[in-house]
C-alpha cells in the first residue's frame, strides 16, 4: 500500500510543478503590479510553441528526388537531408535530439520581450481600473494569442519528442533502498520536477538576496513609499512582469514532451492555475508554490481507482472543490496575508 501511495504522490509532482510555476508567475504579477492577468496561461502556451518553432527550424530538411532509385511502391525515391545535420554533422544530430531543453535558451529572451512589451503596451493602462476590467482585457489578449497560434500552427497538438537519453523510467524505489522495479517514474517527469525546483529556488533567491529583489519586495509592501525614495519602481515592476512571463514560458517549454501543445493549452492551464493562486492566497509567493504542488498531488490521489470507487467523478472536480471550500472557509488562502484581498 505504501508503494501505491508513494507512486501517486510522485505522479502528482510533475503536474503540481507546472501549476506551481504558472501560479508563481501569476502571483508575481499580482503582488507587484496588482493586476489580475488572465493572459498568463497564454504565456505558458507561447513558451511551449517557442519549443515547437525551434524544433521546426532544427529539423528543416531538403527534399530531393533520386531518379535512379524507386521506393518500394514504385514512386521516385525522395531523399530527405536534414540541413542541420548536413552542416554540423553529429553535433547537429545532438542539437535536434536536445531541441526541447535547448529551446529554453531562446525562449528566455523572447518571453522577456513579450512580457515587457505586453506590460508597456497594454497592461500599464489598467493599473487604475477595476479588477473586472483587468480580467476582461487580459482575457481578450488570451483569446488573441490563442487564435494567432491556431492560425499559425493549426488546431492539432504537435508532439515534441524528449531527448533519447532521457526517455524511459527511473527506478526511484531502488534508489531509496526499496524493492527494485516497484516504484518507477519517467525520467522526464523527474527532470521537470527538478527543473521547477531550480526555477522556483532561483526566483526566491533573486528576490531575497539581490538588491533588485529587495527593492521589488519593498515595492510590493508599499509601492508609494519606495517611489518617494527616488526609486523608479515602475520600471522594476515591468521587469518583474517580464520575469513572470519567462517563468511561464520556460514551464511551457519543458512541459511539451509531457503534453503535446495545442492552441488551447493556455486556457486549459489558466483556469486551474488561477484556482491554485486563490488557494495559496492572492499575493503570497510561497502559498502559490505550496498550493500548486498540493493540488497536483491531490488531483493525482483523486484519480486512484480506490478513491473513485467511493466518490465517483471526484478526479474531475477535486481542484475546484478544494478551491470552493478554501474560498468559503478561509478567503485569504493557505498562506495569504491578513487583509490582502480579503473580501
Amino acid at each position: 500500500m505504501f508503494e501505491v501511495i508513494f507512486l501517486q504522490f510522485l505522479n502528482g509532482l510533475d503536474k503540481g510543478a507546472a501549476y506551481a510555476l504558472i501560479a508563481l508567475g501569476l502571483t508575481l504579477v499580482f503582488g507587484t503590479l496588482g493586476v489580475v492577468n488572465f493572459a498568463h496561461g497564454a504565456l505558458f502556451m507561447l513558451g511551449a510553441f517557442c519549443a515547437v518553432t525551434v524544433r521546426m527550424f532544427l529539423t528543416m530538411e531538403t527534399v530531393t528526388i533520386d531518379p535512379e532509385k524507386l521506393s518500394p511502391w514504385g514512386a521516385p525515391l525522395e531523399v530527405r537531408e536534414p540541413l542541420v545535420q548536413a552542416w554540423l554533422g553529429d553535433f547537429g544530430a545532438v542539437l535536434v535530439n536536445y531541441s526541447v531543453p535547448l529551446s529554453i535558451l531562446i525562449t528566455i529572451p523572447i518571453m522577456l520581450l513579450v512580457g515587457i512589451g505586453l506590460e508597456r503596451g497594454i497592461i500599464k493602462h489598467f493599473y487604475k481600473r477595476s479588477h473586472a476590467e483587468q480580467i476582461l482585457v487580459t482575457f481578450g489578449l488570451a483569446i488573441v494569442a490563442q487564435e494567432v497560434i491556431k492560425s499559425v500552427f493549426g488546431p492539432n497538438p504537435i508532439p515534441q519528442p524528449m531527448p533519447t537519453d532521457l526517455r524511459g523510467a527511473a527506478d526511484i524505489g531502488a534508489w531509496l533502498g526499496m524493492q527494485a522495479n516497484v516504484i518507477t517514474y519517467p525520467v522526464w517527469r523527474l527532470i521537470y520536477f527538478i527543473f521547477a525546483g531550480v526555477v522556483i529556488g532561483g526566483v526566491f533567491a533573486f528576490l531575497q538576496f539581490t538588491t533588485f529583489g529587495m527593492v521589488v519586495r519593498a515595492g510590493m509592501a508599499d509601492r508609494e513609499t519606495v517611489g518617494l525614495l527616488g526609486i523608479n519602481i515602475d520600471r522594476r515592476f515591468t521587469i518583474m512582469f517580464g520575469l513572470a512571463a519567462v517563468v511561464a514560458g520556460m514551464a511551457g517549454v519543458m512541459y511539451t514532451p509531457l503534453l503535446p501543445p495545442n492552441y488551447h493549452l493556455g486556457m486549459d492551464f489558466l483556469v486551474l492555475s488561477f484556482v491554485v493562486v486563490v488557494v495559496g492566497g492572492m499575493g503570497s509567493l510561497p502559498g502559490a508554490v505550496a498550493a500548486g504542488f498540493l493540488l497536483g498531488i491531490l488531483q493525482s490521489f483523486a484519480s486512484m481507482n480506490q478513491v473513485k470507487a467511493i466518490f465517483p467523478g471526484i478526479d474531475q472536480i477535486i481542484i475546484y472543490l478544494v478551491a470552493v471550500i478554501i474560498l468559503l472557509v478561509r478567503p485569504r488562502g493557505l498562506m495569504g496575508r491578513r487583509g490582502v484581498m480579503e473580501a
Partner: protein
Amino acid sequence: MTTFMSRNDLFLFLGFTVVVLAMPIWLAPFGAGYPDLLQRFMIFGIFAVGFNILFGLTGYLSFGHAAFFGVGSYAAVWSFKLLTLDAIPAMIFAVVISGLFALVIGFLCLRRSGIYFSILTLAFAQMSYNLAYSVLTPITNGETGLQLTLADSRVLDAAMGQTFSGQPVPTLLGQQLGGYAGFYFCAGFLILAFFIAQRIAGSPFGMMLKAIKSNQTRMQFTGFNTRPYALSAFVISGMYAGLAGALLAVTDPLAGAERMQWTASGEVVLMTILGGVGTLVGPVIGAWIIKYFENILSALNDNILARFWSFLPEGAADFMVTITSKFVGDGWHLTLGLAFVIVVIFLPGGIMEGVRRIAAAFRRSGSSSAKPSARTQPAE
C-alpha cells in the same frame, strides 16, 4: 399609463419591440434574414439581458453563467422526453430548475465579492461541466449530448392519446416550432425578458442593485443587508440564462455539455461588454453583433476574399487575401478577440457609449454652447 412607465421607457420598449418583430424584414439586406440565425439572435439576446441584470446592475462579474444556460437546456430536453413535446411546460420547468440551481450556487458564491466571486462562479461552472461529461452521463448523455428519441415516455402526451411518427420535434399547442414560428416564439420571450429587465432597472429593487455596484460598504453602513438583493439578482439572472438555454433546446432539441464550458461563459461576458454594460439595449446589441459576425465571418473563405480584393494588382491582392483570411472563417475568433481588447481599452462603456459620444459630439457642434456632462460622480 404615466404612473406605470415613464414616457422614455415606453418609447424605448415600443421601439425595441418594433425593431425585434421587424427583424426578418430589415435584416434581409444584410444576409441575416433567415430564421435559424434570427432565433439565435433572440436566444443570446435573452442570455445577455439576464447576464446584465447581475453584472450591469450589481457589478458582480460571473464567469460561470453558461452553467445555468446548460442546465436550462438539459431541463427542457428532459421535459420533452418525460412529459410532453409542448414547449411551454419545458420552458417553465427549465426556468424553475435553473433558478433553483442559481439559488444554491449564488448563495455560496455571493459570500465573496470581486475576483473571488468570479473564481467561485468559474469553479462551480467547471465542476458542472466536468461532471456533465463524466459522472452525470445518465442525465446528460455525456459527449453524445441529450436528444429526443421516439421511444421516450412523454407521459402527458401519452395520456392525451397523442402519437407521433418520425423524429419528435418540440411543438406549441400542436404547432411545430420550426422556421419563423420558432423565431416569433423566441422573439416574444425576448420582448418579455426585455420588459422585465426594464422594470427591474427602474424599480426600487433596481436602485438597490445599482447602489451595491457603486458602493457596497456604504450600503451596509446605512443598515441594508445587501446579500438578499444581490442573491435575487443572481437568481433572476440565472433564470434568464435557463430560459435562453431552454429556447435553444426548443429550436434545436439537443443539449450538450459544451454549452456549459467556461468559454461559453466568456462569450456572454464579451457580448455584454461589447454592447455596453449596465445599459438595457447594449447587451442585446452586443449579442446580435457577435452572433451576426460569427455567422458572416466564419462563412467567408479564400475564394470570396479573392473576389473582394480583385480590384488590386495581382501580387497585392494575393497578399491581402493571405492576410485577411487569417481573420475570417475559422479565425474569426481572432477578430472577436481583437475587437474585444480594443473595446475594453478605448471604449469601456461598449457600443452604447460610442453611440452616446457620437451623439454628444453632434449636439456640441450643432449648438455652440457646450453643455457640461450631466453625470455626477459620487464623492468618495
